[in-house]
C-alpha cells in the first residue's frame, strides 16, 4: 500500500510539463521581501528617528566653531577632550539607532507570526507552495540580518550627513576641514559599529527574539505579555527559592546587547573609541552564545510546528 501510494506523485508529475525550476532559496528570498512590504514601519521608523536626531544635531552645531578653536589651540590637555566632544554626537547617533533597533526587533518579533493569523491572510500564504519552515526562517532572517544591517546603513548615512554639516560649518568659519576628518577616524568607527551590531545586537539577543517569535505564533492576543509572563514567573521563583536574580538579569541584559563578551573595554560605556579591542574569538568561544543558539533553534522549531497547526484567529 505504502509503496503504491508513494509512487503516485511521480505518475502525476509525469503527466505535466516540467515546471519552471525555482531555486531552493527563492521562496526564502520572496518571504523576506514580503516581511519588508508588510512591515514597512521598520524602515520608516528608523528613518524617522534618524531625521529627528539630525534636526537636533543641526541646532547643536552652533557650538562647533568654539570647540574647533579650542582644539586648534594645540594644548595637549585639551586636545583629547576636544576630539571627544566633537566625536560624541557620532557615538550618540549610533547609540540612539541601536536603541531603536532593539525596540523594532522586539515589536517585530512579537507580531511576526501573529499578524497573518489576525488578518486571516495566513490562509492565502498557506495556499502557496512555501513551507512553514521557510516562513519562520524568513522572519528570523529579518531579525538576524536585515534589521541590524538596516540600522548600520542608516547610521552610516547619518554620520555622512553629520560630517558634511560639520564641514560646511567649519568652512563657513574659515577653519580647516581636513583636521576634522583626520581626527574622527570615521572608518574605524564604522567597522567597530558593524561588529558591535552583529555581535551584541543580532547574535547575542537572538534567543530572546526567537522566544518572542514563538509566542507570537502561539498567543491569540497580547503576545508581549504572554512572552514576558514566564520570564517574570521564573524570576519570581528564583528570587523566592534562591534569593538571587540571575535569570531576569541574563534575559534583560541579553536583550539590550549587554553582557556579551564582545568589544567593551572595562569601564567604557560606548563601544567605540581608540581603547576598544575587538575580540571575535572570545565572543565566538563564549558558552553563553552557543547555549543561546540552542535555545533559539528550539524556539524556531516549535514556531515552525505551531504554524502548521495554526489558522486564522
Amino acid at each position, binding site marked *: 500500500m505504502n509503496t503504491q*501510494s508513494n509512487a503516485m506523485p511521480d505518475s502525476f508529475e509525469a503527466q505535466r510539463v516540467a515546471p*519552471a525550476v525555482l531555486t531552493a532559496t527563492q521562496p526564502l528570498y*520572496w518571504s523576506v521581501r514580503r516581511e519588508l512590504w508588510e512591515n514597512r514601519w521598520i524602515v520608516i521608523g528608523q528613518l524617522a528617528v534618524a531625521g529627528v536626531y539630525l534636526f537636533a544635531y543641526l541646532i547643536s552645531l552652533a557650538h562647533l566653531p568654539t570647540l574647533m578653536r579650542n582644539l586648534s589651540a594645540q594644548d595637549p590637555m585639551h586636545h583629547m577632550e576636544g576630539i571627544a566632544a566633537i566625536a560624541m554626537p557620532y557615538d550618540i547617533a549610533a547609540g540612539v539607532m541601536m536603541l531603536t533597533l532593539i525596540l523594532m526587533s522586539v515589536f517585530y518579533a512579537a507580531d511576526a507570526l501573529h499578524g497573518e493569523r489576525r488578518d486571516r491572510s495566513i490562509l492565502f500564504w498557506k*495556499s502557496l*507552495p512555501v513551507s512553514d519552515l521557510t516562513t519562520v526562517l524568513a522572519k528570523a532572517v529579518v531579525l538576524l540580518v536585515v534589521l541590524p544591517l538596516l540600522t548600520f546603513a542608516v547610521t552610516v548615512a547619518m554620520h555622512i550627513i553629520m560630517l558634511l554639516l560639520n564641514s560646511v560649518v567649519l568652512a563657513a568659519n574659515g577653519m580647516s576641514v581636513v583636521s576634522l576628518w583626520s581626527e574622527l577616524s570615521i572608518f574605524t568607527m564604522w567597522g567597530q559599529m558593524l561588529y558591535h551590531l552583529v555581535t551584541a545586537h543580532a547574535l547575542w539577543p537572538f534567543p530572546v527574539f526567537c522566544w518572542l517569535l514563538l509566542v507570537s505564533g502561539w498567543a491569540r492576543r497580547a503576545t508581549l505579555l504572554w512572552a514576558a509572563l514566564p520570564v517574570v514567573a521564573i524570576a519570581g521563583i528564583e528570587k523566592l527559592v534562591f534569593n538571587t536574580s540571575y535569570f531576569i538579569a541574563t534575559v534583560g541584559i541579553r536583550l539590550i546587547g549587554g553582557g556579551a563578551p564582545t568589544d567593551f573595554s572595562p569601564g567604557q560605556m560606548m563601544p567605540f573609541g581608540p581603547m576598544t579591542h575587538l575580540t571575535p574569538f572570545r565572543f565566538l568561544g563564549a558558552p553563553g552564545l552557543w547555549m543561546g543558539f540552542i535555545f533559539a533553534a528550539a524556539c524556531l522549531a516549535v514556531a515552525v510546528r505551531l504554524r502548521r497547526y495554526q489558522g486564522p484567529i
Partner: protein
Amino acid sequence: MPVIEAHGLRKTFGTTTALDGVDLRVEEGRILGLIGPNGAGKTTALNAILGLTPYQGELRVLGRDPWSDRDHLMCDVSFIADVAVLPRWARVSNLLDYVAGVHPRFDRAKAEGFLARTSIRQRSRVRELSKGMVTQLHLALVMAIDARLLVLDEPTLGLDILYRKQFYDSLLNDYYDRSRTIVVTTHQVEEVEHLLTDLMFINRGRIVLACSMEELESRYVEVSVNPDKVAAARALKPIHERQLLGRSILLFDRVDRQQLAALGEVHTPSIADLFVAVIGSQVAAQGVA
C-alpha cells in the same frame, strides 16, 4: 486515478465530531459541489484536503498526504477561502511579484491579462479595493496558476449578484478545461447548479448523498401530482412531499419515470429541492428526537 481519495476521514474538536468517517472519491476533470448546512463539516473537509488541519483516517490528494506534504501539494492545488484573505497591506504588484517568485506554475502575464479586464490597478493596495474587487484579484491570481485542483470555499460570500455571476463565468470560460478538478462549497446552490458535474451532500460530518449530475437526473424525479392521484403517488413511497400553490409536489428516488408521468407533471428536481428533501428530513428527525 482519483484526484482526491478519502477513507474513513474523521476529525473531532473536543467533544464535537466535525467529520464522522467520510469516504470520498473525486476523479480528474470533475466539478464537485459540496453542499451542506452550517456546521455540517464542509470547511473541515476542505481544510483536511488542503493540509490545513490534521485528521484521522486515510486521505490522498493528487497522491500526496496533505498534512505532511502541504507545501509540495500547493504546487498543484489552489484555493480561495470563504472570505477575502488577501493581506490588506499588500499592493497588487506585491502579490504578483510574490506569487511569481514562489510558485513554479504561475503565469504572471496571464494574471495581468485578467486584471486588465477589471478596474484594479497594480499600484492599488488590497485595503483600497472593494470586496468584489478583492475576489476578482484573488481569482485572477488563482486562474493564472496551472493547478490540477482548485478548491473554493464559499468564494462569493457577501458579493453582489453581478460579481457572483462574473466569478463563475470566468471560472468556466477562462479556467476550466476538463483536465482540472474543482471542488466548491456554497450556500447559493442555484448559482453553481449548472456548472457542477458531481454533487455531494454532507450533514453532521457524514456524506448523505453523492452522485453525478447525470445520475441525479436519472434517479430523482419530482412530480407535481394531479389532485386525484395523490394517494396513488404516495403509495410509491416518495422521499419528500411539499405543497406548492395548492398542489402536492412529491419527490421520488429511483422510481420509474413512465409510471410517474401518469400521475402528473414530471421534472428533474433542483439541487435546492433535493437538499431540502434529503437534509431537511434529517434535520426534522433530529428536531423530533
